[in-house]
């Protein structure tokens, strides 16, 4: 056990955790933010993707202790009050989900890849979503959503 402190969606969170606590369990169970999902729990599906110091990572494959002092954003941290993030809006408008279970991870991956490459191509989007699995949509609407989200975020494609 030991205390860790990290910034979660702009707010400092300090908790006592066991050394083997996963970051995703810290977020969901200790802090109570359940938007980050656990799908496969084996680093394949991407439902648990969050941003750790600005880069997308799978929160089921990191120990909470490894994130000591980090700046973390989860799906709950994207919207500005009631105003959705442009990528969330794009998923809404393009029906980029069915059951919605994979959506938090999809959106977090999408935001990172577009932030790094705002004129992203469809091929790059498909490649970029390699680590996110959806069992409902067949991906078409998700890819369309990311494209629309990229345009809203200032991209030219």
């Amino acid at each position, binding site marked *: 056990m*030991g205390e860790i402190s990290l910034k979660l969606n702009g707010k400092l969170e300090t908790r006592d955790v*066991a*050394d*083997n606590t*996963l970051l995703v369990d810290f977020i969901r169970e200790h802090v109570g933010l359940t938007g980050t999902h656990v799908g496969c*729990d*084996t*680093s*394949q599906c*991407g439902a648990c*993707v969050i941003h750790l110091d600005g*880069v*997308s*990572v*799978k929160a089921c*494959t*990191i*120990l909470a*202790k*490894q994130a*000591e002092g980090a700046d973390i954003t989860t799906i709950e941290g994207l919207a500005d009050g009631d105003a959705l993030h442009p990528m969330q809006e794009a998923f809404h408008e393009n029906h980029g989900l069915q059951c919605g279970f994979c959506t938090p991870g999809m959106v977090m*991956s999408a935001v*990172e*890849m577009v932030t790094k490459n705002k004129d992203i191509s469809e091929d790059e989007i498909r490649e*970029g979503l*390699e*680590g996110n699995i959806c069992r409902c949509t067949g991906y078409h609407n998700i890819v369309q959503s990311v494209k629309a989200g990229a345009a809203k975020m200032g991209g030219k494609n």
Partner: protein
Amino acid sequence: MYSTKYVKPNSTTEALEAIKSLGEGKFLAGGMTLIPTLKQRLASPDGLVDISGCKLDSIADEGETLKIGAMTRHVSVAESAVVKKAIPALAKLADGIGDRQVRNRGTIGGSVANNDPSACYPSAVLALKATIHANNRSIAADDFFTGMFETALEDDEIIESISFSKPTKANYVKFPNPASRYAMVGVFVAQFGDEVRVAVTGAGEGGVFRHQEMESVLSSNFSADSVSSVNIDSDGLISDLHASAEYRANLIKEMTKRAVGQIH
């Protein structure tokens, strides 16, 4: 995951002291293999020594060689202008590992120390005549990989960096498993003047290996056509639910042809 201890030292000296004091400890780099292994309870170390604070994240062009620190993440190698200029095939290899979230965390040192038989990096280490710099000695690539998940590293040794020799030309081509993206077969071809080195990952029961016959054929005639004449023996190749040894033997030939055909 079994209960374990976690420590994060600030230098390799401290990391080595920590691992000694832990009983059976493990170094934790990016954790992309180790953490899933712990979650499946396939390992139960007394403690984890996180080496991400040990300042081992670096990329330096040193003239004849390119030196990469052990904690350098795949994304950093893939996006590095220095790597792209010195050994573009290495940047390409890093850009094809796992998925973007794995590349954002996984490290070169972790991959090489783990020596997964399907990992991409060991093939580059072997083909590019790399030297593995551990805390107290340097080990040539040809002496480093000793078997599946086995290396010449002792329990109290830690990789600090890896120096790759700059080739005249090189290329890496893999046939990724459609689900995991691990290499079913990956072939790294490197040309150093008249010398050609061909390293194969994903295929050997003993892990990564150099294909001597391919090397000698390509040394005398460097072309995709000359690869066709090589007979690939399926003895000693992995046979599992993803592919038979014969299928992998054929993939070795095909991946080598592609690597040679598209080399630059």
